[in-house]
């Protein structure tokens, strides 16, 4: 087959490979291998997994973006499609950009179905090659995937040595698997080399842009943050897409949290009967002085509401990771969204408000996990870290994490036994320091520290009350404490030039797409300032940005403009100045979408 004429379309280190597959066939390891090999060639790369809420047999896709400029969001285009699932040929074919490539398994002729003149078909008889080489049915399924990695290595100029090294590392204790994988790679590689003029114009060229980076997902790094923060209790109920957070915590603890002498655990993980119990356990442990957390997603957070109000009112530290997925109700468990914002901010009945942190990538999942435990204990309140499926479950390229061995956790205002010895009467809910935060005591430390913790009306002394003044005194102080939290939550990330009056405000995983969109818009002469909120309640920098800009695009991934609503409710933001850019289909937001939305709004504004 002749691939000439495509040379005009060279996309060295700047293209997207999308792999269409059937879930349960082991494609994840093949795709991970491919992505990591590109990363090892020093080329910036990011992977997005689009998987069904299912165990085996449904369509699944994996998208790898190679970006020499280091852009980490989806671009919104597909250059090379590896079609391993005949069920989805039609839609997969339709998605390729003009001039792109469609690699399919030509064991069974499909040319008639594949009618697009502007796309190059690359037929490789993967099943045939693998069936001839391997005997067991399971190996044939798995190796077919490894075989396309081999074909791609030839087509894209992926260095075979890098693949070999990786496989040797991955299967260090299973030499048979190394041999099988290498054989499958060789089959694909040789076939592609013999039948096509390799490499394609879309190709890889070694760079040196990944040395100070890692490839990791947010749930893993959030779990690592919990370990480094000194969390000892994790209680949870399994729910997609948060489950891998506790899996990772368990793995880390097994390695780094065993008593070296006895081998016993310096941690406790409880798989609760439901999310109500999970948050109850976290609050029980937090009340008793241990750092405790629970990972969950939307439906779990809904169930936790009553207890979150209890934690707020009784002032008990707790850390909750809400790895958001598409709602409402069960929604789409394997799709991403940022639609729990309002629920989280005001979770539970009565006047409640919570402290929220918004990581934008896996590295921030690590640092914000650590921050969350400090804030929860400093402020004596539940703190929620709102990531999402895109951050939590996808592998992102992020700067290497660092740790300061001198760092000590902030355990907040907990009375020491010595302080309690000199105390005649302990008043749990009295603000002695003027920051809205009272002193706290732990059970079992000293008789003077005893008090009764309750979710019913209580006075500053900690006694039960139904007296209006006594009740209101505590409620008002809680309000002051929440205000004080503005100065403690992570400051927003701001990128601004003096003199600009238009800007973008965004949140969480939108960040990567926004950054790329801003570069692209700047290239078109549209310059915008940018603020990414990183915590709630919003502090003075958010207020300042809102004041200084007369036109602000609020980019977020939900239908109801929840970030915009929160800004309008909690700051001096002027409604007319805010324009929503909303993406909520469940796929991670891409830069192309943001660019075209902003461009359209500006064009309409000029026309008006």
């Amino acid at each position, binding site marked *: 087959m002749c691939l000439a004429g495509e040379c005009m379309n060279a996309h060295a280190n700047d293209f997207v490979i999308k792999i269409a597959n059937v879930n349960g066939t082991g494609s994840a390891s093949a795709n991970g291998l491919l992505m990591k090999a590109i990363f*090892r060639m020093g080329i910036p790369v990011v992977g997005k997994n689009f998987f069904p809420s299912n165990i085996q047999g449904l369509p699944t896709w994996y998208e790898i973006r190679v970006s020499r400029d280091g852009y980490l969001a989806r671009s919104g285009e597909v250059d090379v499609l590896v079609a391993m699932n005949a069920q989805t040929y039609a839609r997969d074919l339709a998605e390729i950009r003009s001039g792109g490539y469609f690699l399919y398994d030509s064991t069974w002729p499909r040319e008639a179905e594949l009618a697009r003149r502007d796309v190059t078909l690359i037929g490789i008889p993967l099943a045939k090659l693998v069936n001839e080489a391997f005997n067991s049915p399971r190996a044939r399924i798995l190796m077919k995937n490894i075989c396309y990695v081999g074909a791609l290595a030839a087509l894209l100029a992926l260095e075979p040595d890098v693949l070999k090294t990786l496989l040797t590392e991955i299967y260090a204790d299973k030499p048979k698997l190394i041999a099988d994988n290498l054989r499958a790679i060789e089959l694909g590689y040789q076939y592609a080399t013999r039948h096509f003029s390799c490499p394609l114009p879309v190709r890889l060229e070694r760079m040196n842009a990944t040395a100070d980076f*890692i*490839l990791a997902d947010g749930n893993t790094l959030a779990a*690592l943050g919990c370990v*480094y923060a*000194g969390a*000892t*209790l994790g*209680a949870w109920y399994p729910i997609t897409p948060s489950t891998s957070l506790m899996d990772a915590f368990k793995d*880390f603890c097994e390695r*780094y*949290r065993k008593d070296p002498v*006895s*081998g016993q*655990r*310096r941690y*406790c993980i*409880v798989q*609760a*009967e*439901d999310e*109500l*119990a*999970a*948050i*109850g*356990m*976290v*609050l*029980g*442990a937090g*009340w*008793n*002085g*241990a750092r*405790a957390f629970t990972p969950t997603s939307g439906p779990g957070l809904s169930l936790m509401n*009553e207890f979150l109000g*209890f934690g707020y009112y*009784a002032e008990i530290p707790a850390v909750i990771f809400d790895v958001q997925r598409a709602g409402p109700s069960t929604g789409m468990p394997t799709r991403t969204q940022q639609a729990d914002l309002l629920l989280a901010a005001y979770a539970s009945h009565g006047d409640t408000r919570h402290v929220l942190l918004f990581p934008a990538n896996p590295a921030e999942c690590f640092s914000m996990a650590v921050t969350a435990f400090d804030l929860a204990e400093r402020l004596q309140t539940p703190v929620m870290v709102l990531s999402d499926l895109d951050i939590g479950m996808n592998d992102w390229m992020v700067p290497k*994490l*660092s*740790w300061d*061995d001198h760092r*000590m*956790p902030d355990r907040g205002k907990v009375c020491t036994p010595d302080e309690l010895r000199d105390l005649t009467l302990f008043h749990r809910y009295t603000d002695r320091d003027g920051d809205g935060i009272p002193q706290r005591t*732990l*059970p*079992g430390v*000293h*008789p003077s*520290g*005893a*008090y*009764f*913790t*309750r*979710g019913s009306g209580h006075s500053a002394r900690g006694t*039960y*009350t*139904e007296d209006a003044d006594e009740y209101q005194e505590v409620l008002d102080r809680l309000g002051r404490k929440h205000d004080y939290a503005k100065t403690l939550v992570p400051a927003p990330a701001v990128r601004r030039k003096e003199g600009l009056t238009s800007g973008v405000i965004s949140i969480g995983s939108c960040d990567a797409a926004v950054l790329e969109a801003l570069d692209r818009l700047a290239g078109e002469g549209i310059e915008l300032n940018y603020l990414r909120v990183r915590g709630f309640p919003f502090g003075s920098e958010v207020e300042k940005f809102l004041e200084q800009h007369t036109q602000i695009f609020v980019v977020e991934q939900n239908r109801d403009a929840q970030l915009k609503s929160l800004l309008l409710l909690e700051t001096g933001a002027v409604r007319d100045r805010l324009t929503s850019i909303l993406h909520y289909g469940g796929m991670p937001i891409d830069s192309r979408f943001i660019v075209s939305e902003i461009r359209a709004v500006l064009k309409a504004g000029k026309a008006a």
Partner: protein
Amino acid sequence: MSFMKKPKVSHSGLPRNELGLSIRDYEGSMSTLCAGCGHDSVTAALIQAIWELNIQPHRIVKMSGIGCSSKTPAYFVEAAHGINAVHGRMPSIATGANAANRSLHYIGISGDGDSLSIGLGQFVHALRRNINMLYLIENNGVYGLTKGQFSASADQGSTAKKGEVNRQPPIDPVTLALALGGSFIARGFSGDKDQLVPLIKAGLMHNGFALLDVLSPCVTFNDHEGSTKSYAHTRHFDLPAAQADFIPRKIPIQAVTAGGEAIPVALHDGSTVILKKVAKDYNPMNREEAYQYIQKHRDGGEIVTGLLYINEDQAEFHALNDTVSGALRDLPYPELCPGAAVLEEIQQLYR
């Protein structure tokens, strides 16, 4: 107003326990429950049991959910921390608190609404995890604070104060716990302090989840003719099957056990429970037989009480988790944080 500071009245002649504390030192605030409420008798029994066990007041943790029963932790051991959680969710608070510090004495006080309706799920899961705690249900068959609705423990055919007949079968926490594999299962009656105090002591010293279902009549809404949870009914149909005598570790056991029907059960702290069979055909060491006996007599309208089942060999929560022996909350930070060098090493996997 339902909080009243109780004046501390104490005189020098009051007996002292080994810590030099009188029973007054184990009291709490003034009860705001109705005069004659069974729960106040349970509170008194708790105070006596804890005092006699020589437990330092601040080493106790009191936990409850919502309801009349759940108010009572405020009425005993004032020098202990207490936590009044949301309705039916005390077991999860207890699980988390116990996970954080296994060295304290945990007492959960619940009711039949709190444990058998809204909190049934959490109750059985705490039992299944064998959390080391005394879990005491003050069981009166009725919702008091919302004024007289049947609870899930109300017997079929019993009537409400205004005459309504309950047609649904009850949930019995004792047979439920037996079926689920509970390691300590007892039933008492708030009107029988002599039976109740040793049950509380044994439950507190049991190494695992000690369920103590206490029939505790509601004088306001469920003490009438037609109620099967009234004082009169409970007294009449009470069938003590196995009596528990609690022997602290310092007293030699031989000196106490003279009778032939007594079975000594060693508790983990070195104390002993002497089980005396009151009913000859009852075996509190056999789950199936205990179940059959209780069920058979319940069918006949009798309420079997006493230490009904005990198994000291069942692993409790921390043993199952293989937790370090000290309190997790007291582990020094350097033992929890792997540090910069390890972080570097971990990240090699992500390269």
